[in-house]
């Protein structure tokens, strides 16, 4: 009792600021700077729309993250179910009234900005499931009821995103949820069996895929199948990365992107451009920064007192890691092309908003690491 009061007393704003994880913050700032420089390069060495917009978003969301981190983790805990429900509502709204762009309905118009709820869901599903498992006794985690309920929590948003259609994001949502289930202590055999099941059902799933998705998978298996069509992205991306060499072609000198051979260079293929201009060394440094960030996130989780904070930090860190791995494997031609942005680096407000909210909550767990949640 004594301890609690002592910490309660000292938990003023000043103390909270001191308790911020400055290594994580500075890594995020460096990453933000790198992403701005890369965006500047995609604009052809001029400050154009993408650079400006990315800069404004980064600054706003960075300060939003700081604000979130100063709010007590208990508040975010209490918001778990509600925020999930709100995002779910937004997803349903999207299906009916969303903005259609390049063949899929992904955005909703909030008058002052267009938002992509599926990106937000990637974070809030972690928040929701973390809250769900926080209260649960270890014996109940593997109960039929708990498993079914958590799977429903995952499948509802996932299916809402699939019908947009946006296979990539729905997969990332599912992965985020499954990561939480893993950390919550779900029996290994479930994972094993579901893996087996999905491998067996893979041909059936492929037969249900849309033609463009099918061609992506086939193209991944053999990019030379249609070098000017579906294979074009993978081939050009590999050429860009490969031609970068050890030191890269130099800032603003990436011919593949400058001469518009690279598709989607602002978003999914931003790493390709970075890798072309800064080479192997630059890419390793970027990976290192990401590694430090993820390490700090997990460390914060490890030092947190509450189970909720731990579960959230671990799951969030792991999810970020998986997003990075999927994005990089995709541009390096290791997995088929699925639309998945590189956190913070890629252009896209909703993705950055979601990532920053996540880091905010993690930071809040840091500043309130001694806070226990009933």
């Amino acid at each position: 009792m004594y301890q609690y009061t002592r910490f309660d007393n000292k938990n003023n704003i000043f103390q909270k600021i001191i308790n911020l994880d400055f290594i994580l913050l500075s890594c995020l700032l460096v990453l933000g700077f790198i992403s701005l420089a890369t965006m500047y390069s995609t604009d052809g060495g001029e400050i154009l729309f993408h650079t400006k917009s990315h800069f404004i978003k980064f600054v706003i969301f960075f300060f939003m993250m700081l604000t979130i981190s100063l709010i007590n983790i208990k508040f975010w805990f209490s918001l778990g179910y509600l925020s999930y429900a709100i995002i779910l509502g937004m997803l349903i709204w999207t299906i009916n009234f969303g903005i259609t762009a390049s063949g899929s309905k992904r955005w909703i118009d909030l008058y002052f900005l267009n938002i992509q709820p599926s990106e937000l869901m990637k974070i809030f599903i972690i928040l929701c499931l973390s809250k769900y498992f926080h209260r649960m006794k270890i014996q109940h985690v593997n109960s039929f009821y708990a498993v079914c309920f958590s799977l429903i929590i995952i499948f509802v948003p996932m299916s809402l995103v699939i019908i947009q259609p946006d296979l990539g994001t729905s997969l990332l949502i599912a992965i985020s949820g499954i990561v939480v289930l893993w950390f919550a202590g779900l029996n290994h055999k479930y994972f094993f069996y579901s893996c087996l099941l999905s491998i067996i059902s893979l041909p059936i799933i492929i037969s249900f895929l849309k033609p463009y998705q099918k061609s992506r998978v086939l193209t991944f298996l053999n990019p030379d199948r249609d070098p000017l069509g579906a294979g074009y992205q993978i081939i050009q991306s590999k050429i860009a990365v490969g031609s970068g060499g050890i030191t890269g072609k130099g800032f603003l000198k990436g011919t593949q992107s400058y001469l518009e051979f690279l598709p989607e260079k602002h978003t999914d293929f931003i790493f390709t451009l970075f890798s072309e201009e800064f080479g192997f060394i630059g890419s390793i440094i970027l990976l290192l920064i990401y590694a430090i960030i993820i390490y700090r996130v997990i460390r914060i989780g490890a030092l947190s007192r509450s189970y909720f904070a731990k579960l959230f930090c671990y799951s969030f860190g792991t999810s970020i890691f998986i997003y990075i791995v999927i994005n990089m494997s995709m541009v390096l031609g290791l997995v088929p092309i699925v639309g998945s942005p590189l956190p913070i680096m890629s252009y896209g407000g909703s993705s950055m908003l979601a990532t920053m909210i996540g880091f905010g909550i993690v930071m809040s767990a840091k500043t309130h690491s001694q806070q226990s949640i009933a």
Partner: protein
Amino acid sequence: MINLSDNVTKLNSLNRRMFILATAKIIILGGIVSRLFFLQVKENKKYLTLSDKNRIREWKLPPVRGEFKDYFGNTIAGNFEAYQLHIIPEQVEDFRYVIYRIKELLDLTDRQFNKILKKKDEIKPWETLIVGDNLSWEKFSKINNHLYDLNGVKPVISISRDYPYKENFTHVLGYVSQANENDISTNDEIKEKFVPGLKVGKTGLEKTFEKKLIGSNSVERYEVNAYGRRISQLAFQKGDKGQTIRLTIDTKIQELTNHLLKDKAGSICVMDIYTGAIIAMHSSPSFDPNSFVFGISRDEWQLIRNDPMKPLVNKSLSGNYSPGSTIKPIVALSALENEIINSDFTVHCKGHKNPLELYGQTYHCWKKEGHGFMNLKEGMKQSCDTYFYEVARRLGVDKLSVTAKKFGLGKKVFRDLFDIEKNGLVPNTQWKKNALGKNWVLGETIITGIGQGFIQTTPIQLCLMTAQIANGGYKIYPKLIVNNNEKQDDKFTPLYKKSKNIKIIQNAMFSSTNEIRGTSYRSRIDDPKYRFAGKTGTAQVKKITERDRELDLKTFEIPYEERDHALYVAFGPYKSPRYALSIVIEHGGSGGTVAAPLAKELFKIIIDRHEIRKNYDNKKYLDI
């Protein structure tokens, strides 16, 4: 406490799983790094090449074609600066306005205008649209004066083929025109150097020497973006101009031949009897090869193609004519060589009332009244047919054909130089059996003796034949190209058995031109400097019937297609022969009245030019 221990198990499980995952993460990260290493370090070279392949593109420019020069170094096929008008559609703000303005300025017809609009739709907006390909200076400067109004229009000076002597050299040089599918597929050199708008030789020497003339492309290397648009020029590699080819032809004489054959169909060939150099070779009518350079208009093409005088045919090389009496020197020579007759051999020509009769067929001399008693010299001089009927009958066609072939008849004179050159035909008994499956009859020998029947020769063959008689009976190899490296070969192969025989023939030809009653006596030149010897020929194109003989029509009274071909072969100056020539006028009438007078005019110039030619050679050696 139970609650607490439960929490502890939960936390333990969480931390354990975190540890498992952290290990997995490090392995996966290692995988990404190794993939990066593979792409960026190990396979770097391969991808760097691919990246350069992506961004660097080369544009070939049309090569500059080599020139043709005449013997004196005058350019007879050169290059000129063509004024062109280029538009890059995407650089034009208001294409409609600009194109209508240009139409106005250049006075384009609706057909030309629509062609341009059609072409514009076919190309990409950043590719060059050629609006005018060969503008006059007036139009070009007019455009230049209005450039302020024509945004995006580029006046360009490009290099194109020019034939300054127009129709004079058409049949020797041929002409160039846009390369088509056929040119590209048959000639690898063209295929390699092809660029849109490349002009290649279509006929004549332009075609034969394509490989030497074509030169090599200049190459512009550009950086391009993913859509193929040029971003910046990286390099410019200048190509070489094609080789210059010098001909043995003298433009002055060539022009004279063209002038002499004006409004006639026929050919004149002039040859150096020692070197075999062609001094002039012209086929008439001719046409202006410049019309083909930028594509000939349909009307003009129809006009040329449907002309009854056949301007497209090179009559010097591919015109097969019966040699008529111009074969008589060879018939006589063959008979002398085979010792069938001697120069005193005499035949009595009795005129039309008493023609030679053989197996029911009658063979008339051209002279109604008959020539009386003829020896070799007189027979040749007056071109007595009856005399040569008898000589041919005694000689036989096989022996005649051996001599004729020896002197260059019946085979291509330039071998591979022109693909249109014809062989001609020197018949013998074997040939007829093989080709027609019938036996030779004596009557055919008789008419072969006066150059009628199966025998066919081209004008250049007749010229070569005359040259080889004129030089004393030695073999020469006609040539059109001056080859500086070629050593003068002084060893001539004799074609005769007894050089006396050649002398007899030369004398007989001399008398034909320079003695009274000679068939070309009226065309003689008395000045010994220019005096020449020759033999006339009048080749029938159809059999003369009894009715024709009774009517005895004048040439102009007979339909054009049925008129005789007029031929003349000659060499001069008689004292020390240097040049031989052959003249063929299609459907011209009698050789003595139509063809021989041209020789008179030619020899004056040819012999005057000989001095200049010699001086030019000497000066050339002094320069070295």
